[in-house]
């Protein structure tokens, strides 16, 4: 049974979906933020460090899905890295809880320039349904300069890909 599975996987065509169209709203938001110098430095590849700053874990599940065989993020030159010191992009979810604020700021400071911040989900935009909570700061932009928002609760993998491809298009010219 095992050998049948391995054989099928070996001869099977890739399962990956075609790339979604680049999100025009994201392109417009990014246009003003990326300069030619950083374009030249990065080339067509971006390393992403994900930071959960108070999410319900819904966004993380969909960000995880970007790595499955159907979305396969790495074919675009995008990859998730284990340390902010290796990252070009911080991808931040959640309404930024007071208990995560310091860790988020330190992660940002540990990320080398040039760097971009992508706020994911409705919570990341303005706190979402947790806005106004005494335990939350409310939105990533209250703590860090945000270059791109990807809305949704949670955004689908296709929406996440559309936003990230817009970022890639912009920074790599």
């Amino acid at each position, binding site marked *: *049974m*095992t050998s*049948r*599975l*391995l054989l099928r*996987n070996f001869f099977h065509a890739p*399962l990956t979906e075609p790339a979604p169209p680049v999100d025009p709203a994201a392109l417009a938001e990014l246009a003003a933020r990326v300069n030619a110098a950083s374009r030249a430095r990065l080339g067509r590849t971006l390393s992403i460090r*994900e*930071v*959960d*700053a*108070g*999410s*319900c*874990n*819904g*966004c*993380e*599940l*969909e*960000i*995880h*899905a970007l*790595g*499955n*065989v*159907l979305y396969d993020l790495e074919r675009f030159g995008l990859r*998730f890295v*284990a*340390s*902010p010191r290796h990252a070009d992009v911080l991808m931040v979810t*959640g*309404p930024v*809880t*007071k*208990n*995560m604020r310091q*860790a988020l700021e330190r*992660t940002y400071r540990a990320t080398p320039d040039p760097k971009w911040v992508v706020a994911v989900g409705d919570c990341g935009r303005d706190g979402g*349904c*947790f806005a*106004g*909570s*005494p*335990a*939350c700061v409310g939105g990533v932009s209250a703590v860090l300069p945000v270059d791109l928002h990807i809305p949704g*609760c*949670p955004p*689908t993998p296709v929406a996440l890909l559309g936003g990230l491809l817009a970022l890639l298009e912009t920074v790599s010219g």
Partner: protein
Amino acid sequence: MNWPALNVDPRAWTEAGERLAAGDLLLLSLWGEPRVAHLALIDPSGKPRLLHFPCADNRFPSIGRLHAPAIRLERTMRDLAGLDAEGSPDTRPWLRHGAPYPFLAAEGESLHQIPVGPVHAGIIEPGHFRFTANGETVVRLEERLGYVHKGIDALMAGASIERAATLAGRVSGDSTVAYALAYARAVEDALGAQVPPRAVWLRALAGELERLANHFGDIGAVCNDAAFSIMHAGCGWLREQVLRAASACFGHRLMMDCVVPGGVRGDLSAQGAQQVASLIALIRQRFPELVDLYDNTASLKDRTVSTGILSTALARQYAAGGYVGRASGRDFDARRTPGYPPYDELRFEVPTVQAGDVNARVWIRIQEVEQSLALIAQIVARLPGGPIFAALPAAQGEGAALVEGFRGDIFAWVRIGADGRVERCHLRDPSWFQWPLLEAAIEGNIVADFPLCNKSFNCSYSGHDL
């Protein structure tokens, strides 16, 4: 309310703590609001009950002093409601951060500490793990949680029933259906509301799809932590098929906001039912190959067998829910005990094993996938017709519910005021009684096996931190 509730004096309160310690009663939850402490219990035959302890001075006799699983809940009561547990062995804050945190001491020759988190290397939730190791061997793990504390209790107090439902569905995103169901059932219990039969069955369908998606994700992720990526790829593909079917049937990949007090939002079309049937057929065709691959790969089993053993005694003491309890011999499932419809009309088994290691927690998930497939087939075949929502009656009162999420039993309690708004709501994640057991399970294992152990527990940070 269907659950018996009593106002008790200090003597009866303490007696309940003693019976918990003796194992005559099981702890469902312990929570507070200014001037009242609440205790939810279940006896081994499955009869639940609530105890209310009015305390004008915001002090109550500690349950944690007698029964350790209550300790973190008591620390939280002080952080969130200002209630003091008198005689508690641990008075450090828990969800409230800000002051320097004194970790427990671990002393001895050749020990060193490894601090990990709150920002981890993977795409996971934040929490801090303080390992004390002797060489490669972990001699103590101490968790520090609360980083994703969003203040859900405070946001719920005074919210409309609908707004609180939105929040309940976002306590832990991976269990959004189970949380929405637990909250909805507690509200319906409080108001004496009747839910149309079709809605009851559709709720179960959504709940079982959620269980499938999470179990596939977990089985793949455990194998991935042993660097066996083909299982991860295969299970990730299956998980994606479930989420796409969920999106086609319920309009949302995670099925957020589908279960609401009074029924469900969005009916299952004939086409949707067909899609579910195809999904079941697809999983039945593909999943056995992956199970076979897991079972016949010696290098993978070498990592999971006898790693991170949780004793049956600890699982029983902490009333550990879900696969954590069932992999350590605890035969409990809220769908069966105390039970809720439509599961009383469905045939399913609750798998248990005694081994308590990572491999056992994977196998329980594999068997639960098979049970969920059988349940979904029964639900789709017997789905009753009729409406899917009934307006809630205007009423006030207190209600409680216990619902089996993929991770274990979720307890919900709510009090609706005369104005029809939520006065107080308490939601207790299964992780409250699983996180402390992870500390025990890792003891004596090597540091490199922690990711495997952690993933096999897959406790919720957000659900715990509220």
